[in-house]
C-alpha cells in the first residue's frame, strides 16, 4: 500500500508549471524576440531586416514552441483543477478553461506560425512580410477578451470561495490583469508612443503586472498543493 498521498499527480503538474513558463520565457524573450516586442513604427524593409537578423533563433525558438505548446494545456488545466476545489461548483472552472483555451490560438499560436512563415521564405515581397509581422504581433499582444474572461471568472471564484484555495488578494491581482487588458486595446490605434504594442503603458507596465500575477500564481499553486497533501495525510492517519 503506497504511502504517497493521492495528489502526487497534482505535485507533478505544480512543478511542471514554473518549468514550462521558464522555457516559454526563454523562447519568447531570448530566442524569438517577441517579448519585448519589435517596434510597430518601422518600414517593411526594416521588418525584413528583423527577420533576417533573428532568422535562426526564430526558427529554433518557435519550432521548439510547436513541440512544447501542449504545456499550455497542462498549466491551464492545473488552475482549473484548483478552481474546482473551491466551493463554487464547476461553472467558473469551465469558464477558465474556455477563456484560456480560446487564448491559446490567437494568443501565441498565431504569432508562432506567422513568424515561422515569414522566416520560411525570407525573399518574399516585403509587404507580405510586413503583413505577417503585424498579424503576429497584434494577435500576440492584442488577444484580450479570452484572457479577460478567464481572469474575471478566476477573480469571482476566489472571492466567492469558502474553501480558501487561493487568498482573496489574488482575486484583486487578477482584476489588475483585466485592467491591463482594457488598456491594451489602445495598441490597435497607436503605432508609437506609450500605448503602442511596445509602449511603456500598453506593454512594459502590463508585463510588470503580468509577472506579479504569474509569480504569485506559481507560489499559490504550490501552497494549495501543500494544503491538499496535508489534508490527505491527516485523513490517512485518521483512517488508520
Amino acid at each position, binding site marked *: 500500500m503506497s504511502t504517497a498521498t493521492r495528489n502526487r499527480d497534482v505535485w507533478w503538474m505544480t512543478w511542471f508549471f514554473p518549468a514550462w513558463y521558464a522555457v516559454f520565457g526563454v523562447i519568447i524573450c531570448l530566442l524569438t524576440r517577441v517579448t519585448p516586442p519589435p517596434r510597430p513604427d518601422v518600414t517593411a524593409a526594416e521588418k525584413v531586416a528583423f527577420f533576417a537578423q533573428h532568422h535562426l533563433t526564430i526558427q529554433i525558438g518557435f519550432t521548439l514552441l510547436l513541440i512544447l505548446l501542449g504545456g499550455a494545456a497542462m498549466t491551464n488545466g492545473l488552475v482549473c483543477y484548483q478552481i474546482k476545489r473551491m466551493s463554487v461548483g464547476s461553472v467558473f472552472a469551465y469558464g477558465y478553461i474556455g477563456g484560456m483555451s480560446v487564448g491559446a490560438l*490567437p494568443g501565441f499560436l498565431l504569432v508562432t506560425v506567422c513568424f515561422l512563415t515569414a522566416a520560411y521564405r525570407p525573399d518574399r515581397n516585403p509587404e507580405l512580410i510586413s*503583413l505577417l509581422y503585424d498579424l503576429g504581433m497584434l494577435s500576440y499582444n492584442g488577444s484580450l477578451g479570452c484572457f479577460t*474572461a478567464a481572469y474575471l471568472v478566476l477573480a469571482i471564484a476566489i472571492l466567492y470561495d469558502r474553501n480558501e484555495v487561493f487568498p482573496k488578494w489574488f482575486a484583486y491581482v487578477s482584476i489588475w490583469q483585466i485592467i491591463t487588458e482594457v488598456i491594451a486595446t489602445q495598441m490597435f490605434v497607436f503605432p508609437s508612443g506609450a500605448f503602442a504594442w511596445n509602449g511603456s503603458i500598453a506593454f512594459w507596465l502590463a508585463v510588470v503586472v503580468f509577472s506579479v500575477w504569474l509569480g504569485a500564481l506559481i507560489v499559490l499553486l504550490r501552497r494549495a498543493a501543500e494544503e491538499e497533501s496535508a489534508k490527505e495525510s491527516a485523513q490517512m492517519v485518521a483512517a488508520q
Partner: protein
Amino acid sequence: MQILEQAQDLPTAGNIKAQWVSLWTGPAVGAVLLVAAIAFPGFWPPMSPTMSADQVAAFYADHTAWIRASQVTFNLCGILIVPFLSLIVVQMKRMRQTHVFAYCYLTAMVSGATIFALSNVFFLVAAFRPGRNPELIQLLNDLAWIVFIAPIGMVVSQFVLLALAVYFDDQEHPVFPKWVGHFSLIIAAAMVPAAGAAVFQTGPLAWDGLWSFWVRNGAYALFVIVMFFVLRKAIQRQAVDDGVISA
C-alpha cells in the same frame, strides 16, 4: 434571488451564486456586443464581397476610428460570453445521462469561440495600417469575413449536442423543457447554409447576404436570448431542489 440563511455557507449555495452571476453576465455582455455591432460601420449595410481592393482600402480609411473602436470592443468582450455558455455545460451535467455530451459541448463551445476571436484579429489588423497595399487589406478583410461567417461547424455541434442531451433527459422534471431540443435543431438548420459565404460572392449565401448574415447572426442572437430565460428557470429550480432558496 434570496438565499436561505441556513444554506448561506454551503457549497450548494456557492454553486448557485456562481451560476447566478454567470447568468447575468449574459445580458451585460450581450448589451455591450449589441452596441459594438451597431457601431461597426462594416455591418450597415454588410460590406459586399464584390468590393474591389481599392474600395475596401478606402472603406477602412474612411471609417478607421469607428472600425477600430467597435472591433476592439468585440475583441475585449466577445469571449466574455464563455461564462454564460458554461452554464449550459453545468446544467447538461445534471441531466439523466452520463456527462459525455456536456464535455463534447464544452469542447465545441471553446473551439467556436476561438474562431470568433480569430476573425476579430483579422479585422483589427486590416484597420491597423491605412497605408498598406489595398490588395493586402482586401486579403485581411476576406479572411476576417470568411472566418466570421462561414465556419459554423462547431456551433452546429453545440446545438445538436444540446438537443440530444435534452431528448435523452427523461426524468420526471427534466432540466430543460423538451422544446429546447427542437429549438436548438431549428437554429442549427438556420445557421448551416452560412458555410456558403466561403464560396459565393453574391446572393443570399454571400457573407453580406440575407441568409449568411442576417439569418445566421439573428438566429444565434435569438438562441442566446432564449437560453437566458431557460437557464434562469433551470437555476432557480436547482436552487429550490438543493435547498438553497425557498420554493
